[in-house]
């Protein structure tokens, strides 16, 4: 296989190369290949196996071009035709080279290759789901001969049932190996391969197993033929029947952009953005904007049978469906009554971390102006109120953007691939392809980055992470006194610490410090975040900081002030925008933290609750305690999609609009805005949350909620949150085919736009940024860790996007999307336990125990285990205190029962 470190589009040299493309002089950089320069210059060379994100394989031979080489001894002589045509994807450009992509030789090659690739192709296009967006069909029309000379029987393979999500039809395969390379390089899992030789050559998975990584669905899109097709989308519709909506993922805080494909307003499939100039109605098989499987296959939860699409009011103990207006009147009445009876501070507002910025903004405004308190929050899943505040401190100092690239990256803790999948992918791909150092510090290292050659791992116990970061920042400042302690924390030689310090000091240009806020529900954040910010300040101004939280719109909700102690803008601006007179106080202190809400309800301090989305309540670790507390509320107004344990306890239920039915803006963890676009209006009696809140506020006597559309809310919000924003609400909508089938670009495959450019999504002034001041606060000390009993391991954990999730539980194929429980074990611990990678083991936490797969890797530090919370139904109700766990290899008898 080709050189893995050369990425055609990302790693050009600096030296200019002048050559001729179809007799036109063009300039490229040294090291670039013919196909990349041609794509940039608007000359389309047909290809199957070449993909801008993957290494060069050179096995489809469709990009054969005619080249004429200059005579090095006699530069003035005309270039001589090369003895054979060369492949455009692997041939580097050189000075004076003459490339002909549409000459007679090139056309003959293309035609011959098409005939060759079609020799064994079954031509079952009518029953193939790829029909209509297939590159084999396209190229047959564009470059093929139009007839076949194949008279013999075609080769046939049996069909494997390897993966529940991906259908493998080997007869259609043209052996481009894109899927193999994708799983190896991007997916991070060597799971597919080419088997057998010659005519018996076929594609498959090792041991007929599934392609289980979270990015596996992308091989469906990048397969140029119908070999890999989507099982959930199987035979649901033909691609030309589908309308498209350009939107964004509600699962992935990386802000992945998606296209929802609908027929008759029903969601059929979700793919990466289909932004192709040459063909508006097909998925982009050259996409570089990969999405995770949850976004791809789970976005249809709004169609679940448990969906309540009517407002409901509690009358005599049961929730009776009622008109929206009636529910608004009821909700406004009971909130006003609670406010009068128990005071303004007895009401709290909760916002789902998947709410749009507009919804969060209105919730913040509602609490501050209509209720008159600071009790608005979204941070329910944190271990303590202090860790929630630490996360906010991290957001305050967030200033990094991955699109700018980096010359080094420091990752503090985190299971990035399973929390922010496409963000992890972008970090890893950039580091891997550009050979940038990846320095992992903390109690958990994501094994996904093991493909990066410049990887360095420094593991430590969870309680020691902040101390390690602090000592590291001191060392960088020149105080080497702590190096000995640091070496002890990391269990490495002192010289290695010195080399790490030298490496960090020597980083030139932009660099990134990325910190996960997820681990152990943020139990150690109060000291880890200040420590990381101190490290960033010590490293210098070229280092940027990105805090990583799994919650999709966490950054946006922080921005709009949907949390205690924060307003969406300066107090004057807010006062002006919200029409609050100068004498009145805007409540910004003493707010109720969502984390302590349950305790406050139990103590009777909170009597009324307005929740936008029940998922925020579902993220509370101790559900039984939460449900008991909800019973005690006098007023519980909830706006949600489903009939669930939580919503059944409501006094007023509002049917909310699902991810496909609402419109708004979300911010990803880099602070870039993306538009969540509705496919169609809400179903039945459902209403988007901005309408519900506007209704309740107006009914409660406020005049400041006179919005006619979500765009009005956006305009008011963005002026406060990002005064420098120079775009518009509609301008944030992603470029792509609109929801109409009327315009068709009469298929010019040669007029294709060049590859993905991250800058396409940037809107001037749309980056949410606040503080550029270096952090100078103190780092609180961490309580010493209690020693674990013999045979016990300290359990570290983090949420997993494929785990227990309110929305994911309602997806139509949720059972296929959930990850199987596993536990990561350090190799040294695995050796003492006699555990091997992939073997079954029993994990015991407290009194509960479940069977898990052991993954032996240098993820957790020695003596600790890493368990992705929410997998396998094991609830980790411990709120931040250190948990210990036992791990035993599963017995043979137990194995038999699996």
């Amino acid at each position, binding site marked *: 296989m080709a050189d893995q470190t050369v990425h055609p589009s990302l790693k050009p040299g600096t030296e200019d190369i002048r050559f001729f493309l179809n007799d036109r002089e063009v300039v490229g950089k040294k090291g670039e290949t013919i196909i990349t320069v041609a794509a940039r210059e608007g000359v389309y060379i047909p290809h199957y196996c070449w993909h801008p994100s993957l290494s060069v394989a050179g096995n489809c031979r469709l990009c054969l071009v005619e080249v004429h080489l200059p005579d090095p001894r006699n530069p003035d002589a005309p270039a001589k035709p090369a003895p054979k045509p060369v492949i455009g994807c692997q041939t580097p450009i050189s000075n004076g080279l003459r490339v002909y992509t549409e000459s007679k030789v090139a056309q003959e090659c293309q035609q011959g290759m098409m005939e060759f690739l079609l020799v064994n192709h079954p031509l079952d296009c009518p029953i193939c789901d790829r*029909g209509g967006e297939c590159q084999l069909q396209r190229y047959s029309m564009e470059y093929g001969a139009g007839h076949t000379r194949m008279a013999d029987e075609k080769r046939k393979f049996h069909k494997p049932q390897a993966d529940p999500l991906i259908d493998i039809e080997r007869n259609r395969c043209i052996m481009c190996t894109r899927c193999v390379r994708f799983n190896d390089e991007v997916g991070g899992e060597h799971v597919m391969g080419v088997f057998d030789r010659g005519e018996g050559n076929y594609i498959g998975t090792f041991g007929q197993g599934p392609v289980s990584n979270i990015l596996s669905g992308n091989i469906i899109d990048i397969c140029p033929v119908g070999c890999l097709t989507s099982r959930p989308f199987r*035979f649901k519709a033909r691609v030309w029947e589908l309308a498209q909506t350009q939107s964004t993922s509600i699962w992935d805080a990386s802000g992945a952009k998606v296209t929802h494909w609908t027929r008759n307003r029903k969601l059929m499939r979700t793919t990466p953005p289909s932004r192709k100039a040459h063909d508006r109605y097909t998925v982009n098989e050259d996409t570089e904007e990969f999405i995770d499987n949850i976004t791809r296959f789970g976005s249809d939860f709004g169609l679940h049978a448990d969906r309540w699409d009517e407002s409901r009011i509690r009358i005599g103990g049961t929730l009776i469906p009622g008109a929206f207006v009636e529910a608004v009147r009821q909700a406004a009445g009971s909130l006003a009554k609670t406010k009068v009876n128990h005071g303004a501070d007895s009401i709290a507002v909760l916002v789902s971390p998947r709410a749009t910025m507009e919804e969060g903004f209105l919730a913040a405004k509602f609490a501050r102006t209509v209720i008159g308190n600071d009790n608005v929050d979204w941070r329910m899943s944190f271990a303590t109120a202090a860790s929630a505040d630490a996360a906010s401190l991290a957001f305050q100092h967030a200033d990094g953007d991955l699109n700018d690239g980096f010359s080094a990256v420091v990752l503090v803790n985190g299971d990035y691939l399973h929390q922010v999948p496409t963000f992890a992918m972008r970090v890893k791909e950039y580091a891997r392809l550009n050979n940038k150092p990846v320095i992992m510090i903390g109690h958990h290292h994501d094994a996904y980055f093991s493909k990066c050659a410049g990887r360095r791992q420094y593991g430590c116990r969870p309680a020691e992470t902040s101390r390690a970061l602090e000592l590291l920042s001191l060392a960088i400042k020149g105080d080497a006194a702590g190096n000995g302690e640091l070496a002890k924390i990391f269990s490495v030689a002192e010289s290695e610490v010195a080399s790490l310090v030298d490496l960090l000091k020597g980083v030139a240009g932009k660099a990134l410090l990325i910190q996960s806020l997820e681990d152990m529900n943020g139990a150690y954040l109060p000291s880890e975040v200040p420590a990381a910010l101190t490290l960033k300040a010590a490293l210098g101004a070229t280092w940027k900081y990105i805090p990583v939280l799994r919650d999709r719109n966490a950054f946006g909700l922080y921005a709009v002030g949907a949390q205690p102690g924060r307003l969406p803008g300066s107090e004057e601006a807010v006062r002006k925008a919200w029409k609050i007179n100068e004498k009145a106080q805007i409540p910004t202190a003493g707010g109720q933290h969502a984390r302590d809400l349950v305790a406050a309800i139990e103590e009777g301090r909170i009597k009324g609750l307005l929740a936008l989305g029940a998922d925020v309540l579902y993220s509370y670790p101790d559900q039984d305690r939460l449900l008991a507390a909800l019973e005690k509320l006098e007023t519980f107004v909830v706006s949600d999609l489903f009939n669930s344990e939580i919503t059944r306890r409501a006094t007023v239920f509002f049917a909310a609009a699902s991810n496909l039915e609402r419109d708004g803006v979300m911010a990803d963890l880099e602070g870039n805005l993306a538009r969540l676009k509705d496919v169609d209006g809400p179903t039945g009696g459902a209403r988007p949350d901005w309408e519900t809140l506007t209704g309740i506020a107006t009914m409660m006597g406020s005049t400041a909620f006179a919005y006619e559309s979500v765009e009005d809310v956006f305009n008011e919000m963005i002026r406060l949150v990002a005064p420098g924003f120079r775009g518009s609400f509609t301008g944030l909508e992603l470029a792509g085919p609109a929801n109409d089938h009327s315009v068709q670009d009469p298929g010019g495959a040669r007029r294709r736009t060049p590859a993905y450019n991250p800058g396409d999504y940037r809107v001037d002034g749309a980056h949410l940024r606040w503080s550029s001041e270096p952090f100078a606060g103190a780092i609180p000390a961490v309580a010493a860790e209690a020693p674990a009993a013999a045979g016990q391991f300290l359990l570290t954990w983090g949420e997993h996007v494929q785990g227990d999730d309110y929305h994911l539980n309602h997806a139509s194929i949720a059972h296929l999307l959930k990850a199987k429980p596993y536990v990561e074990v350090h190799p040294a611990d695995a050796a003492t336990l006699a555990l091997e990678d992939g073997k079954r083991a029993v994990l015991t936490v407290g009194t509960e125990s479940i069977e898990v797969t052991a993954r032996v890797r240098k993820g957790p530090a020695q003596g600790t285990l890493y368990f992705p919370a929410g997998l396998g139904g094991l609830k980790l109700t411990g709120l931040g205190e250190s948990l210990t766990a036992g791990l035993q290899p599963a017995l043979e008898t137990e194995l038999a029962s699996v």
Partner: protein
Amino acid sequence: MIFELLKGLNIAAHHMVRYMAGPGNVTVEYPEVKREQPPFFRGRHRLQRYKDGLERCVGCALCAAVCPSEAIYLEAAENTPEHRVSAGERYAEVYQIHLLRCIFCGFCEEACPENAIIMGPSFELAMSKRTDFIADKGDMLDAPEKGFGDYHEYDPYISHVTAESDKKAKADPWDKSHAAGH
């Protein structure tokens, strides 16, 4: 005067007798007698089967794609070993043609890669309810008792018009004797 009247009646009677009994009549006693249609006649749609009873239609939806009046609605599903409907992996679970929208252009049978849909000889399309005009699979699919024998090969490239018949047709547009099937 009476003579002229009788003369006129005689002509009428002559024609009446001639067309009632003679070979050159142009009308038939519909509905008792139904005229046989030429093979290229585009009447009501039929969905054909293979001899073993499997449906020819694989639900590819090319007919729906090509239909200029968007009269065809189709939902496909996957065959399973227990429930096999068509010969391929895919079959049409829902297949509807809105006969009021249909303009009987015949593009669907032309587009069909499996010769599954053909436009049959049936021209009786009057119904009393609007909903009856949505023909589904039950209305169009060949019934098993028909034996699946009369498979109709649609070939748009076979021409029934020869140079001679063309010349004759142009000379006397009312003469139908040159038309195929007569």
